[in-house]
Every structure is written in structure tokens, then in C-alpha cells.
């Protein structure tokens, strides 16, 4: 089969930048990051099953400031992907496609991800 010179859709650089585009690509990036982050979940569970020494190693790594930073990023990625995923489910149901709703839901997703991350960590440190 020969491919003819079919018209191409405008390249990404042609579009005027809109920040809802950022939400879209960040949904994918957080999804990939969370997929790699599942290594931490499995490590934690397997170590807990393996015994106190293995579990102490996980605790030491995750309690280190860098481990906490990774966990903090993981928490935000999870809540962002969760909130924006719900936004996607509304679209799948055919709702929320008009521009004002699209921008409002975008703001809501960012706000919800930050608030939920904040709540989880404040509660984790026993502040609330």
C-alpha cells in the first residue's frame, strides 16, 4: 500500500499554548511516574512479609529526607492523577466539554490535588 501525502493535523508548535494542555500531559506523566512508584508499594509489602530486618531497611530509606521527598511527590502525583482521572470519567460520560467548565474543572483538579496532598502530610505529621 502506498501512503499518499495526506493532510497532517497542525503540529503541537502551531497551537496557541493553553494551560489545559499542561494538565493533559501531566496526567500522562503522573501516570507513568505512579506506575514506577508501584515498586515502592511492592517493596514495602514484600519487606513487611519478609521480616523485621527487611522492613527496617524500607523504613530507613523512606524516612530519609530524600525518601520523604519522593513519597511527597508520589502523594501529589497520586492525588493529581486521581482528581484528573475523575475529570476524564465525566468527559467519558459526555459531560463538561464546554470551555468554561473545562477551565473550571482544571482549576478544581489542581486545587484538589494540592489540598489532598497537604491534608495527607499534615495528618501524617500529626499536625491536624
Amino acid at each position, binding site marked *: 500500500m502506498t501512503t499518499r501525502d495526506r493532510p497532517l493535523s497542525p503540529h503541537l508548535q502551531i497551537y496557541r499554548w493553553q494551560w489545559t494542555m499542561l494538565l493533559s500531559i501531566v496526567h500522562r506523566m503522573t501516570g507513568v511516574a505512579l506506575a514506577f512508584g508501584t515498586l515502592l508499594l*511492592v517493596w514495602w509489602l*514484600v519487606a513487611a*512479609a519478609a521480616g523485621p530486618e527487611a*522492613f527496617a531497611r524500607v523504613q530507613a530509606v523512606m524516612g530519609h529526607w530524600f525518601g520523604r521527598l519522593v513519597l511527597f511527590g508520589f502523594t501529589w502525583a497520586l492525588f493529581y492523577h486521581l482528581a484528573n482521572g475523575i475529570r476524564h470519567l465525566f468527559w467519558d460520560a459526555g459531560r463538561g466539554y464546554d470551555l468554561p467548565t473545562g477551565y473550571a474543572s482544571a482549576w478544581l483538579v489542581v486545587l484538589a490535588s494540592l489540598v489532598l496532598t497537604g491534608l495527607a502530610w499534615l495528618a*501524617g505529621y500529626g499536625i491536624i
Partner: protein
Amino acid sequence: MSYRSPLARARGLGSAREGAGHWWAQRLTAVALVPLCLWFATGLVGLVGADHAAVKAWVGMPINAALLVVLIVAVFHHAQLGLQVVIEDYVHSEGLKIAGIMIGKFAAILLGLAGVFAVLKISFGG
């Protein structure tokens, strides 16, 4: 007006021969993961600073163990479906694409089974 034959429409499988199966499984796991993730996040916050015995006790509780197994299965199914789409969109070399998709699926099965096995071992008092 549809260009599909009545049989093709009834089967609803389209050119890739798998219909909306991938799409539907992604949504099904997504919906399941909304409450599961919120439950798990709440559980983890409660476990901050907990020692090994307390974590084992929490994981081993029947309701928690059951929910963790469901969470793990849904997470890894959802993750490998999502990774597949990302790889299909951005990796254009056919060999690399297939290798990437296979690695994603193998890793999901391996990690998912390891997680489920750990939960069951703790739960059955290993």
C-alpha cells in the same frame, strides 16, 4: 449513516479487532481505584511511625488484606493498560514498541503477584 456492515456493527470490534475492551478495562479499573486509593491513603496516614508488628497487624486484618489484594490487581491492570497506550503513542520503532509493551505487562504481572503474595503471607500469619 454508517459505512459499517450490520455484522461489523453488531460485533463492534473495529479495525484492531478488540473493540472497546482496552478502553473499558481502563475505565473499570479507574472507577474501582477512586475509593480504593482514598482508603489506602487514609490507611497509610494512620500507619505513619508504626513499627513492623503494627504494619503486619494492619495488613493482616481480613478486610484490609482483601481490599489490598483488590487494590493491587486494579493498580497493576490499570498501570499496564496506561503504559501500553503511552508506548503506542510515542515509540514509533515497531520492535521497541512491542518490547516495551511486553516489558510493561510482564513487570505488572510479576510485581502484582509479589504484592498479592506478600499480603497473603502476612494475612495467613507467615
